[in-house]
């Protein structure tokens, strides 16, 4: 699994819980979120991770609950959930643009009548 996904899709973040949560907490929170998602409540549509907000879906919630039911898998997820979720959405760093660079040419292939590869 990619490092970014390992953190962003960690079941604890998906369910909005910390690694100390009990099995009952996991089930209760999962069911609550599934209900909220069915009602399309905005507050359940995303969750916070240390890398910023991510969209939450019913499939993600179900998969997170299933992962945390297995003690071996839960142990690994607890390890990778040592960081608390970010308090607010972080802003990506602006890309470094040289002072004097020509404007981007996204139509460079179209100049010759070619489709972009």
């Amino acid at each position, binding site marked *: 699994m*990619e*490092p*970014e996904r390992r*953190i962003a899709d960690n079941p604890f973040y998906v369910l909005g819980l910390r690694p100390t949560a009990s099995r009952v907490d996991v089930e209760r929170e999962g069911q609550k979120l599934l209900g909220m998602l069915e009602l399309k409540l905005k507050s359940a549509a995303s969750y916070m991770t*240390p*890398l*910023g907000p991510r969209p939450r879906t019913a499939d993600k919630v179900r998969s997170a609950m299933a992962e945390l039911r297995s*003690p*071996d898998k*839960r*142990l*690994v997820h*607890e*390890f*990778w959930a*040592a*960081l608390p979720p*970010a308090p607010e959405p*972080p*802003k*990506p*760093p*602006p*890309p*470094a643009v*040289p*002072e*004097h*660079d*020509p*404007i*981007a*040419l*996204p*139509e*460079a*292939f*179209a*100049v*010759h*009548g*070619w*489709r*972009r*590869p």
Partner: protein
Amino acid sequence: MTEVLATSIVGALIIGLAVAAWVLLLLSMLEPIGWWTIRGGLARAGLVKLSAYAAGLCRGIFEHDRGGGRVLAGALALASRAAHDEDAATWLEGQLGERSALGAAGLVAAGLIAASRGQRDGARDMMTAAVHWETAAPPVARVIAGEWLVADAAERGDWPTVMRLGVRDGIASPTTRFLAFAAARVRREPLIDEPSATDVGLRWLWWRSRGRKHLRALLGQALVTPRVLHFRKPPPPPPAEAGPPVLDPAAFAGDPLAHAQALHALWSTTPELEKQWTPTRAAELCKAWDAAFAGPVLTRLTERCRALAVQTKPEVAAAQLRHTVGEELAALAARAQLPLPALQECGGIGAEAAMLLRGELILGVEKLSQALRVRTKDKRALASVDELREWNALKRAYERAALLGGLEVRRVMFPDVHLNVCNYAVWLWNDRKEFGISGPLFRWLLAEAEAVGDEEAIALQRKNVGK
């Protein structure tokens, strides 16, 4: 009476020959117009087969690779279509496969087909090989390869490459020259062996370019930039102001595991890692992980194993997690193009990651090299383009491993690669007459043998390249 008839026949023959010669001369003069019509009309309209058949008339333009020229015209049409057409691509590849040895025009055609399929890296390799084609090549094919490479660089914002390739003799066209001159003007940098363009010169180049409407904005930007006549070395850029961190690892300094994970997450999600992940930063991350595994990890895992009634022993779980971290550090180092010795010097988990990466790089090259060996031994020939593609894949893997592993890894890989590639190149040269592909292979082997100091290989490859 008979004499008069004979004289008339001879006279008619002479006139007929003269007329035929004039017609041929006229056709050869009209050929560039014909090619211009095919490229600007038929190919632009996406008419693959019609472009290919019509290009068959341009015998002079594609003198050294006529079959390839036909496929090239078809591939230009394929690249101009609104969406990729796999049937047309297969048909073109079939046309290319019918010919024995690959020529430069055929190679450019294969590059355009690959680009049409979205295989941009592969297309770039083939266009670069066409630009450096050593045997006789149709100039038109080289120019199209140059145009594609310049467009590719311009789209990626790689303006130094645009400036370098755009004015290079043999591959430059009015469009690439305009792009190179405009980029040089905006960047206030000189072009190699070229003067700085005047406003009139820039407008003239723009006027001669293809797709002028797409280049109008660049022309405008170039014209508002003052012309620099005397270039000076630019002063070093001021250090960029650090923005607010996405994830601040310093905030978790009290918890070694959280600190290590914060650093790990930060670098795993950083774009353009190769510009930022220096050996110092790599060492910082490795030390953070070493501190985490030395301290709280095992204690925490032991507690949690007991609480969760996990069957895995805490030491085993810790070792598995450590291996995962090592693999991810190796992947980070590969992404950042961090030299292996720098990772090795970090010690602890850094050295483990270096070993993993070293093994992975060498194994990758070995697999490709062995595949080549088996195919050479079985004399299983591929189409010329696929031969080139396979060699490019091996070369790219080797050069990547050499870049990261340095001379030590190069010396480990070279004997096996030399043996297999040399046999492969000899097979291509002797049996299949693919001089365009095998020649550069011998030259590459010689350069590599000299770099690693393999005297036996140097002597052999010098003989092969005729030095």
